[in-house]
């Protein structure tokens, strides 16, 4: 295990602690009695008392925080006053929907983004580059929910090819799942595809003028090998970084997309919680999102070291 990995683990731990503090303080920053906030508007004194003792709300703040972290770590995120269900259970049911949607969107974004980026860089000053650049610019400028509305209008209402809503798990019925998730994933992935494309293009343009690409050409390698084996291989490092940085945008996008296509996922849970003032639920989803984001970023960073040997072996880089 290198020093780099150790350092990243430590940094992630610090960030995670800071994130839990933010969430913890957030719920207490609300005006009024936190017990009432957590128990819901119409709650009887008995419930309030139970909440107070279970969260230790009569204790000093640091103790409350520790108890909160302890509960969260064991999977106890409280109970929703609205549904009466455990927050952790609700999240557990919603998460697979969002994960499948995001994975599909990520796949679309990376395939389209890298492919178009490479083409744009290689076909410099040709119609292919202009087309790719134009589509990417459009992808950045079109709000994804509006793209969703237009796609529904066109492909679900005017020409009903795809369903406008609903979710089928990939593991139950792959074909139906793809049919239901294609439009949402396209909507969710479009912005990311544009960003990946632009980054790939500029990384490739730089890589293609690098000395090692000249060496590869001087060795007599064919253009496919030079472009894919040498230039793209190096550009991927940048692309992985960008995908990592865009995870937050992907999660945000999932919230809107699920709302639009009425998918029973994490995002829908979040929005519904806000409008019903379901604070334990809000606290839970925010905490889970932040934790997931930090963990995924850690994984992305460790993934670098697989792609970039300068990080993996020897301590010269970073």
């Amino acid at each position: 295990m290198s020093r780099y990995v150790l350092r990243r683990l430590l940094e992630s731990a610090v960030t995670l602690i800071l994130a839990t503090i933010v969430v913890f303080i957030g719920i207490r920053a609300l005006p009024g009695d936190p017990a009432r906030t957590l128990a819901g508007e119409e709650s009887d004194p008995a419930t309030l008392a139970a909440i107070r003792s279970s969260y230790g709300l009569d204790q000093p703040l640091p103790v409350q925080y520790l108890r909160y972290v302890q509960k969260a770590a064991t999977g106890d995120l409280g109970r929703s006053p609205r549904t009466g269900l455990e927050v952790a259970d609700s999240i557990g049911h919603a998460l697979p929907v969002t994960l499948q949607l995001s994975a599909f969107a990520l796949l679309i974004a990376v395939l389209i983004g890298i492919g178009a980026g490479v083409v744009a860089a290689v076909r410099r000053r040709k119609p292919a580059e202009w087309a790719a650049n134009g589509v990417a610019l459009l992808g950045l400028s079109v709000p994804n929910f509006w793209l969703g509305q237009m796609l529904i209008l066109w492909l679900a209402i005017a020409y009903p090819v795809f369903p406008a809503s609903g979710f089928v798990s990939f593991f139950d019925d792959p074909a139906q799942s793809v049919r239901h998730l294609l439009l949402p994933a396209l909507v969710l992935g479009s912005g990311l595809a544009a960003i990946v494309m632009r980054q790939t293009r500029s990384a490739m343009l730089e890589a293609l003028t690098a000395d090692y690409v000249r060496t590869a050409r001087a060795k007599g390698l064919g253009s496919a090998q030079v472009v894919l084996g040498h230039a793209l291989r190096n550009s991927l490092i940048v692309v992985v970084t960008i995908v990592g940085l865009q995870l937050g945008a992907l999660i945000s996008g999932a919230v809107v997309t699920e709302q639009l296509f009425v998918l029973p996922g994490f995002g829908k849970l979040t929005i519904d919680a806000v409008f019903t003032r379901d604070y334990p639920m809000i606290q839970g989803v925010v905490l889970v999102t932040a934790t997931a984001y930090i963990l995924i970023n850690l994984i992305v960073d460790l993934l670098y070291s697989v792609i970039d040997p300068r990080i993996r072996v020897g301590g010269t880089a970073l």
Partner: protein
Amino acid sequence: MTVEASTLDIPVAVAPAGMRRRVLRRILRNPLAVTGLVVVCVAALLAIFAQFVAPFPYDQVNFNEPLRPPSGTHWFGTDSFGRDQFSRAVYGLRASVLVGLLSVVFSLTIGVPFGLFAGFYGVLDPVVSRLTDTLLAFPFLVLAVGLAAILGPSLTTAVIAIGVAQIPGVVRVTRSETLRLRGMDFVAAAVAGGAGDAVLLRRHILPNATNALIVQATVAVPGAIIGEAVLSFLGLGVRPPTSSLGIMLADAQTFVRDGPWMAVFPGLTIVVLALALNLLGDGLRDALDPRESRSA
């Protein structure tokens, strides 16, 4: 591979007026950037003079003309209350521009000092890094959800949520520019001349970091405008009866079958504005960074 002849750039302490003019000339030579600039200016004027441009008040209900498709009187059609969609779009533009600008100002006000200190004082760097990492861990919409839960949905909530979400980007750009500039000869010369930290940061580093910040801000505005639309669409931002492009799209949601124009035109308005800002941003980046423009 170009010709071997290379020229070394000699760092200049502060961008002189001549350079500004050169940048302007470069932008004016780029037809896409000029188009973007013109569209952005027109949009700004429409937003400022909304009450003179809009043919109807944005909240004027007319139950005799619900869900009318676009026509000579109602360019963008009417909604289920018979409200003129064009007028509402013009007022919505005002909300978009306002939120876009305010949130970017907000993120710059907080992000720039943090970035400067993180880049200038190595001790603070890890602290600022952890703070921005923590911010990043709350994706924009999740942050907005939390804020809306605490502050209640409003235009201010939207500005703060979007602004906070943009802080890490501003910090990163400012920090890396500061790091780069701190190592430059003219800064060393200023130190040798006895300049204190405050003078260094204010007179030597910040002015030279403006280019990068301008580019960062231009790229952030279209993102902020789309962000406003998303928040209002979800009901977390601007509240009715105030008009916003996002609210119009949320209203359209119920009438996709009977009034598709309700979704088409506000959306197109956002796309045109965001596209123009992105074109302008790309043009600015190319004009401010000749290295990039040669390869782009």
